[in-house]
Structure formats: structure tokens, C-alpha cells
């Protein structure tokens, strides 16, 4: 309770402290809420993508002659139909360069198995699927890479168009944080403790698959019903890709059957809207379950390597963290994830000497993207296992190790932000009380109040 509120009069609270029924509760429990794929429109067409069956190849040709013969086939879109075909979804927040194709042009490389090469629109979903099955692609296969260490080694197949397999941060191969002098810290430490932590990709697997329906309005605008988690993000990117002003697009959403970060990639709206423009009819583009599991983005695989210099009393005096995050064939949200990682990779601890390298690594895997705390969640896993390892090595318990290293108000984090409103120490103390662990008096007496003196052993 802050000092501020002690002086405030107590007013009756209408919402805080009460259990409220959500305003979509009734619609959900009666099954009456309308989700994207529940909608249907007169004359609605179905869009399905012709996708690369191989991981890495030069696209030499697309043959849709047999597709066109399927009863119900209406139209196809290829790279030349897309006004702004090369894009990056984070372009909206200034991330460069543009690197992902909406549809792969002939002469360019497909970079992951499932990459979309042509869009086929048909009267029924079955006709679209059959037309897709009859498409023939001329592909010159190339060596592929699926492992990050391999991708970073000399001689690896190159995924990007700029020659190396890392996203470039202002000319650097990784996001870097430098604070103090880790080598001097290691030299002064009583223990050097290293750990390597790996996380597998995780598919969000929402029960509702990704999808949208783009409907031409009578006034030349388009209404797009979509289950994206990021309505304005999707609208703006569609505007860029189709080169139409945003005020010609009306996006309707908010009813999402599970997202978890898996519906932020703006992957269906641009093509559905383009197809609606080309045909003048509503176009539905909804992922099958197989597409949702195989093609849609996942949480990135990660390798986090930590090297700590630790004193006999448990204080960490130097921490070096190198994190590799596999963005797959295209970077999507991972550059942002790596930036977040770098900002948090020392953990909530007061460490005088820190070196962090965060890499966004390209491989020929399915592009990865956002998922629940992306960039930080797995980092926390790695850091906290490492803390337990440290505790074991120096002969202290996990509570002591964390409290001794916990940051406090006024401490400077490695990326130069000053710690404010810290409650880590108090939270650990409350947790100990909750589970019946009695902390030593010196630990129980700790608070997040600013330190009075320089931390012992600091090397700057």
C-alpha cells in the first residue's frame, strides 16, 4: 500500500474486488457469438494457397493450366498481382528491411516448406483444394539449414537476401548490451558457472484456425471480417501491401477463438482483400487444421548460453548471455523479441558487469513469431535454472542466491534503465512465508529501498 493512498478517503468500489460476468459470456455459453468462419455471404469465393513442398528452392515456374480446368475455378493471384509484394510486418514500427514475399516471384527463392507461391480462388473450398492439388511448380532445390549453430557457421546455406543468416541491428549481427567489464569480472570471481538452455518451438494450436473474409462494399471500400489479434496492425499492413488508403478498408474483428500470439502475423487479410478486389466478390481465406499446425508461426526455438562469475558468498559479479532465437525463413516479430530479450537477459538482479548478445537467426524452418511473452519467457526459464545451478555450486539455498542478487530501487540495469518500483525482494519474502520457509534474519530484513553504498566487488 503506497503512502499516497493512506490519505485518500475510502470510496465504495463497484468493480475492483468483485467477480464480474464478462460481456461476451452469454454469447459464448449459448454458442450464439459469431466467429469469422461462421459468416457466409452471397457469392462468396474460397481462397487456398499453392505452397512450396520443399524447404529451400529457386522458383522457376508456376503452371496452373490443370488448375484452371477444375470446375469452379475462378481466378489465381501470383506475385505480379500484389501491388507491394515485399514487406515486413514490423515495418509499421520502423523495422527494416522488407524481406518477406506475400507471394514468391518467379526467379526468387522459396525459403520454407509451405511458403505461398500462388493464391487460387474458387466457387467452393473443395474446388479450391483440388485446383491447388493440380498446380505444378518448377523448383530448383537448394540446400537447407534447420539448426541455428549451423546457420551461423561459415559455409551455411544463406536464407536472407543480404548474405548472412542474422537480422542486422544497425549494422550489427546481434542486439548488444555492454555494461562494465565482464572479463575483469570473471577474473575476479571465485566460481565460473556455465549453462546452455534450449527451448523447442511451440505451436499455439488455437481451436479456431486463422482466417478472414474480405467483402467488397458497394461504395468501393472493403470490409474484412477477421480473427486477427491485431486489428489495426492488420489493416495498416493490408493498406501497405495493397497500396490503398486505410480509409478504404474497414476491419471488423474482436471475436478470436484463441490467439496466444498466433494470430498477429497479418497473413490472410492482404490476399483475401486483393482477391475480393480482383473478382468483385467476397473471398474467404481460412486455414485448415493442417495449415494452422504446420504453416502458421510458432514460438521460436531458442538456445541460451549463460556464463556467470560468482563470488563465494553467492553474488554474481559478471554475467555473459548469448541468446539465439530462430526466426525461421522470415523475421516477422522475432527482431522485436530479441530486443526484449536483450533488455531482460540479465534477469532482475544487480550485476555490475554484463554482456548480452541477442541473435535473430534465420533458418529454413517455418517462420516463428509472437507467443505469450515472446523474447522473455524462455529467457526467464534459462536464468532461473541457472540461478539454481549457482546455488548448488556455491552451497547456498535458492532463496539466498536470489535475495543476495536481487535488484533494488536506484540500481542501474545493464541497458541503462534505472530500477524503479522494485518489489522483487518483498515478493520473494512473501513467497517464503506462504510456503513456510523461514529466511535468515539478514534476508528477512532486506528491502527494495535504494542501496546506501557501492555494491562490494563492483568492477566498472
Amino acid at each position: 500500500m503506497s503512502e499516497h493512498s493512506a490519505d485518500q478517503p475510502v470510496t465504495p468500489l463497484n468493480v475492483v474486488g468483485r467477480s464480474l460476468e464478462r460481456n461476451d459470456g452469454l454469447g459464448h455459453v449459448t454458442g450464439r457469438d459469431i466467429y469469422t468462419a461462421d459468416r457466409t455471404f452471397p457469392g462468396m469465393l474460397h481462397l487456398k494457397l499453392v505452397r512450396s513442398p520443399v524447404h529451400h528452392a529457386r522458383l522457376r515456374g508456376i503452371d496452373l493450366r490443370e488448375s484452371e480446368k477444375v470446375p469452379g475455378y475462378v481466378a489465381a493471384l501470383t506475385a505480379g498481382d500484389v501491388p507491394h509484394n515485399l514487406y515486413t510486418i514490423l515495418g509499421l514500427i520502423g523495422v527494416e528491411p522488407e524481406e518477406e514475399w506475400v507471394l514468391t516471384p518467379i526467379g526468387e527463392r522459396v525459403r520454407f516448406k509451405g511458403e505461398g507461391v500462388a493464391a487460387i480462388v474458387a466457387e467452393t473450398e473443395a474446388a479450391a483444394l483440388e485446383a491447388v492439388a493440380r498446380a505444378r511448380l518448377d523448383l530448383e532445390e537448394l540446400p537447407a539449414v534447420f539448426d541455428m549453430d549451423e546457420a551461423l557457421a561459415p559455409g551455411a546455406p544463406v536464407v536472407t537476401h543480404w548474405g548472412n543468416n542474422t537480422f542486422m541491428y544497425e549494422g550489427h549481427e546481434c542486439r548488444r548490451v555492454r555494461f562494465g567489464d565482464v572479463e575483469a569480472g570473471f577474473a575476479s570471481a571465485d566460481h565460473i558457472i556455465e549453462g546452455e538452455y534450449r527451448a523447442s518451438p511451440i505451436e499455439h494450436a488455437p481451436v479456431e484456425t486463422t482466417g478472414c473474409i474480405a467483402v467488397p462494399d458497394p461504395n468501393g471500400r472493403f470490409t474484412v471480417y477477421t480473427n486477427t489479434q491485431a486489428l489495426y496492425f492488420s489493416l495498416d499492413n493490408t493498406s501497405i501491401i495493397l497500396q490503398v488508403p486505410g480509409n478504404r478498408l474497414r476491419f471488423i474483428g474482436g471475436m478470436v477463438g484463441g490467439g496466444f500470439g498466433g494470430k498477429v502475423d497479418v497473413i490472410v487479410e492482404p490476399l483475401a482483400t486483393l482477391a475480393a478486389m480482383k473478382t468483385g466478390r467476397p473471398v474467404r481465406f481460412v486455414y485448415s487444421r493442417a495449415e494452422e499446425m504446420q504453416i502458421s508461426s510458432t514460438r521460436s526455438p531458442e538456445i541460451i548460453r549463460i556464463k556467470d562469475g560468482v563470488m563465494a558468498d553467492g553474488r554474481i559479479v559478471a554475467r555473459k548471455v548469448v541468446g539465439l532465437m530462430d526466426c525461421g525463413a522470415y523475421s516477422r516479430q522475432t527482431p522485436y523479441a530479441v530486443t526484449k530479450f536483450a533488455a531482460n537477459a540479465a534477469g532482475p538482479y544487480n550485476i555490475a558487469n554484463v554482456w548480452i548478445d541477442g541473435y535473430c537467426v534465420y533458418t529454413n524452418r517455418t517462420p516463428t513469431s509472437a507467443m505469450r511473452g515472446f523474447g522473455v519467457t524462455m529467457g526467464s526459464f534459462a536464468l532461473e535454472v541457472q540461478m539454481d545451478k549457482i546455488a548448488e555450486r556455491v552451497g547456498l539455498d535458492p532463496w539466498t542466491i536470489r535475495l543476495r542478487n536481487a535488484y533494488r530501487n536506484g540500481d542501474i540495469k545493464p541497458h541503462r534503465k534505472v530500477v524503479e518500483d522494485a518489489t522483487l525482494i518483498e515478493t520473494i519474502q512473501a513467497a517464503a512465508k506462504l510456503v513456510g520457509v523461514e529466511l535468515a534474519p539478514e534476508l528477512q530484513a532486506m528491502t527494495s529501498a535504494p542501496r546506501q553504498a557501492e555494491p562490494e566487488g563492483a568492477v566498472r
Partner: protein
Amino acid sequence: MTVANYFQPESVPEAIGLLADHGPELLVIAGGTIAMPLINEGISLPSQVMGLRRAGLDGINLDGYTMRIGAMVTLTRLGEQYHVPLLATDAGRIAGWSIRNMATVGGNIFAPPPAGDLATALLALDARLTISGAHGERELALADFWTGFMTTSLEPDELLTSISVPLDVEPSAFIKFGRKQANTPSVVTVAVTAGRIALGAVGPHPIRARQAETVLAAGLLDRATIATAADAAAAECDPATDAIATDWYRRRMVRVMVERALTELAAKSKGKEA
């Protein structure tokens, strides 16, 4: 290709007549739990389909020493009968409630590994199949029915109509080991009864662990014999690697689960609680 005809024959002769008319082009569906996902995904594109729900194949008949189960009896229904506890237990461990209401005993015999849990128990029971065709009826042991991965000796003009199992075979033991507690594909399935050991998900189809059975036949069902039999079963199985488990893990789990199943069987044989 869209489906041109969906036939719903109301008798076995009618079904066989349709098979004779259309040959291998006619896709036969029982519960639909295997065929319909493939059709829905556009992987299977049949033009002519025959469904067997109305063909009168859903009866369960007892006759003296055997129970004759119609090929279209659902897993739920099989789970409710008490004449052959091994089958009731097995059926209840497959998929979830809705799928059990649809999936059939006959269909399970054609389910590719790692599916085929019920077929595994039927194999342990030394089930006999009745197959009807244009030329009449024939019977053969389930053990002789599979010829390889997803292939059987069923001729294009034939229909599996019923499965017979002996009634008096208790005690038995059944273990389905998966990665979840329920509604999960098998890492390994084990069914043991009357000196027979059947394994599922560790071969091109459910298999009898014959070497292990020889070990059992030679001695008492004591700890040492059980261990030796389990070793033999692990050595003679032929597991594949798939998204569920690797071949080496399946082989290890055969060792563990066969031992557990035989131990359970031994305890039951002595009349004690397992």
C-alpha cells in the same frame, strides 16, 4: 473430385452387390473416424463411397463358447458388454466418448499403427473373422489376416462382417501406454490372456509376441519368467518412429509394459488384487 454417390446398403448381400459393381473404386466407410478426416482434408478424393451403418452388422450374439461381434458394433457398445472384460476395458481406453460412439470394432482392424488398440486385444483373444463375398463366406484367424502395413488378405469384392472371440478366457490384462492419460495415440499397447501376448503400435499391424509366448509356455508365471518373456517381446517387436515416439523408446516401453501386464496377469491368476 466430389463424391458422386454415397451408398447406404441395408443388408450384407446389398453391400456385396455394390462391391461387385464398383470394385476397388468403392471406398468403404465404417465409423468414418479414419476415412472422413482424409476426405475432409482433400487427401482422399473418392467418387463412390459406401457406408455400412444400415447394413445390419451391429449385433452382438452369444453362442455357447463364443461371442460374435458384428463388424459395425461401436466401441461404446463393446465397452458396455461384460461377457469379455478384456474387450470392455480396451474399448473404453480408446479416443474419447464421441469417437467411441462412432468408431467400430471392424474398422479398428484396418486402423494403421499406432492405432489398432482393439485389434490388439482381439489378436490376444485369437479372434476369428467372418468375411463375406460374392462367392460366399469364409473364416480365418485374425492372426492370418494382415499381410503388411495397411494391407490385408481382404479381396476387393469382400466385406468383413463379424469377429468371434472365445468367452472363457479370463484372467487377462490390458495396458495402453500413451503420452497422455486419455484420447491419445499409443506408444505401445499390450494385451495378454491365455498364454498369448499381443502388441500394438510396434509393428506394421498388431503382432503376437511369439518368442515371448514360448518363454511363458515353458515355465510358471513367476518374476524370472515374466522378465525373460518381456525381454523376448522387446527384441522381437518391430516399432517405427513417428510423431508420437521413436522406435527405441517404443522398444523400451514394450519391455516395461509387457512385464507390467504379465505381473498383473499373474496376480489375477492367483486370485489376488493386482
